[in-house]
């Protein structure tokens, strides 16, 4: 059996999918996020990048989860800025951070380069990301560094989370790093003297869906899961799960 899970071609066969229609992002935001995610985790000799892994749809879906609404963060004022080691002190939820920062970043790129971020050549995109990482840009009140860390974190989540959430398509992220997913039984493999684990990954089965990885919608189509995965009720934010 191959170490990378190639032994399961049928279940892993690419399915021709319709273009993803974002639910939270407007198309320009999705294009920016997908372009930035691809530079953070690009396709290369190791395997597919963020775009092919479905990171854009993953992040769009996550913005409907309680996390997207900062439902479990302490969000009471006053909001006072402080040194970075005292942590996040902005009044915005992830949904608001993406909205503010994407718009401001595209306006910045239009002003400086004449095109929006997604249309810049990769090396110019890298130059902009380098500025963000260094904290040299402010995006409508959102420090560039905060936005960079947000997108970096979400990109890696989307590449390596269970495919349940729309990213890590065909478990390709897991196959790249040799992670067996939900196998969760190594009774006979505690110590094999440095041999690679021989089996490919398995994912958490999507409830009631055989082929049902409708990216981004899985979060609300799974009544079996406990409330922290159900769609956040934006009209009643007090009903925090």
């Amino acid at each position: 059996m191959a170490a990378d899970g190639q032994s399961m071609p049928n279940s892993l066969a690419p399915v021709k999918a319709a273009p993803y229609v974002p639910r939270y992002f407007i198309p320009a935001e999705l294009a920016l996020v997908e372009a930035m995610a691809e530079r953070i985790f690009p396709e290369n000799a190791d395997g597919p990048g963020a775009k092919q892994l479905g990171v854009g749809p993953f992040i769009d879906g996550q913005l409907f989860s309680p996390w997207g609404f900062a439902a479990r963060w302490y969000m009471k004022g006053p909001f006072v800025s402080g040194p970075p080691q005292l942590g996040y002190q902005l009044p915005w939820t992830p949904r608001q951070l993406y909205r503010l920062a994407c718009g401001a970043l595209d306006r910045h790129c239009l002003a400086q380069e004449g095109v929006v971020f997604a249309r810049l050549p990769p090396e110019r995109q890298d130059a902009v990301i380098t500025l963000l990482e260094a904290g040299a840009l402010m995006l409508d009140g959102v420090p560039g560094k905060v936005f960079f860390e947000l997108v970096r974190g979400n990109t890696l989540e989307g590449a390596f989370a269970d495919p349940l959430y729309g990213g890590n398509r065909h478990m390709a992220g897991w196959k790249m790093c040799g992670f067996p997913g939900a196998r969760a039984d190594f009774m006979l493999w505690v110590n094999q003297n440095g041999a690679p684990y021989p089996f490919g990954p398995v994912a958490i089965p999507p409830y009631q869906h055989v082929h049902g990885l409708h990216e981004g919608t899985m979060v609300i189509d799974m009544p079996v899961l406990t409330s922290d995965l159900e769609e956040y009720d934006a009209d009643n934010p007090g009903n925090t799960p």
Partner: protein
Amino acid sequence: MPRKADVVIVGSGWAGSIMAHQLHRAGLSVVVLERGPMRKTAIDGAYPYSIDELRANVRKRLFENLAPQTVTIRNTPHQQALPYRQLGAFLPGTGLGGGGLHWAGCMFRAMPDDLRLRSAIIERYGRKFIPKDMNLQDYGVTYDELEPFFNQAEYVFGASGEAWTVRGKRAGNGDPFAPDRSKPFPLPPLREVYSAALFRKGAAACGYHPYVIPAANASRPYTNSYGCQLGPCNFCGYCSGYDCFLYSKASPNICIWPALWGKKNFTLRTDAHVLKVDLARSPAGQGLKEAKAVEWYDGETGTHQRTEAGMVILAGFQLSNVHLMLLSGIGQPYDPVRNTGVVGRNFVYQTITSSRVWLRPDQHTNQFIGAGGGGVAIDDFNCTNFDHGPLGFIGGSPIWVNQSGLKPIEAMTGAGGHGQPRWGSDFKHQALETYRHSIGMDAHGSNMAYRDVWLDLDPTWKNDWGQPLMRMTFTWHDNDIRMNRFVTSHIPRIAEAMGAVRVEVGSLKPGEPFDVTQYKTTHLAGGAVMGTDPRTSALNRYLQCWDVPNVFVVGSNAFPQGMGYNPTGLVAALAYWSAHHIVTDYLKNPRPLCGRGVSS
């Protein structure tokens, strides 16, 4: 729901479950109030939905919801403390089992000198060796006194491990620095993953003394004396941050609470957030107070409730216990300027830094395999096991490979840095290779108590119920930074003996401030410490409040300084120790169990 009970217990983690079981067994009516939700392993912990990294460790399913209440944090007394708005450096638990549900399972006893560190340092190096403004203290209880209670905890948890000596006789290849035991571990040691076995080889080649970490992850099927059953650990790697679907990792949820379900005179309420302990003047006089009732918010009905209590046990997370004492007026709050008061004093943490060792590309470390408490450690640089004289610091660290199951989101997010790219094609390649071929190694060490590190109430931010948040003033101090740097300086040699092709040593930097955004450990301690002198401890040696004798405060809040080991073994032993003295002594004659005249 009864309106009154003999004892009301706040919190349902290890401390609360042990106290509930022991006091109910003694015939008391017991009410337990837990702020978080009910968590049943068969439902919430079931395979496969429980082993979802995004949901568990990334979105923090089992950890405290900070929306209604958090703490504020600052590094120095002159800064404005700011709210800990997102979980980062530490991850308090919530819900049935508390931190005892999502812990990893490292289950240590304390070293005898951990419990009498002040005396041990003075005996060896003299009083002058203790830096000015370090509040170095003894616990007021000795290892020999606690030994039966360490046993009791290990046999309830089903601990796996290997002894060095039992009743003075060599019993196995355990930790030669470990104190003598009256009984062997209930279960044999866990097997060692490849990474840990390599560390054992490397550490032994350097002349150190490797031993298997004692773990509350069952190496065999086990039934404890309460009839609760554990299954053997299969090294699934979903341990720290997860609610073990295999029933292998000990938790209050599977080791203790099942023994109380359906029992008469036992009530457990979840979504019950305790706001305050009501006090009155004690009829005994002497300036003592008496707890009369507990006020709490019922999250199920959205109403305020009050439960009358003959005794109150605070058994929440360390921060919660200290906060409730401050909100209720139990004990005198600490004032660092005048150096008076005890509640909030000796707040401590632990030093922990992680290093990484890369092996050859044909060596696959399969880091996703592991048991939470599994691994191999050395104690050669822990506690008082080495000569501190020429080094000029107090404290120490075990070094270990505790591969408890590294999942890819955590691995990839943490990859890069230290001069390497954190994004892009090279980052991706290095992160993938690092995941396949490297080993993590930690120096998990002590943290001493200082006059300018403490807990009090914040002047600005409030919780959902209008109460002030607790404020933490904390940063790393020179003594602990030098300790960490000394211990980690030995890691390259061990790594070389393991056959490393590259090593990246993690250590605290001189002057480095505490950073709340990076996970370190959830082993917060102190703030309401035990001791023999009411001027320097909030609790006597039985964990009874000096000022309010019908309140006992159980948890790592009682540790006067942060030790090198993980706290749970000592928390559990102290809970059994306290419960033993409540049942055999206090209940027969409720009173302060120690005279205030006893002084250090």
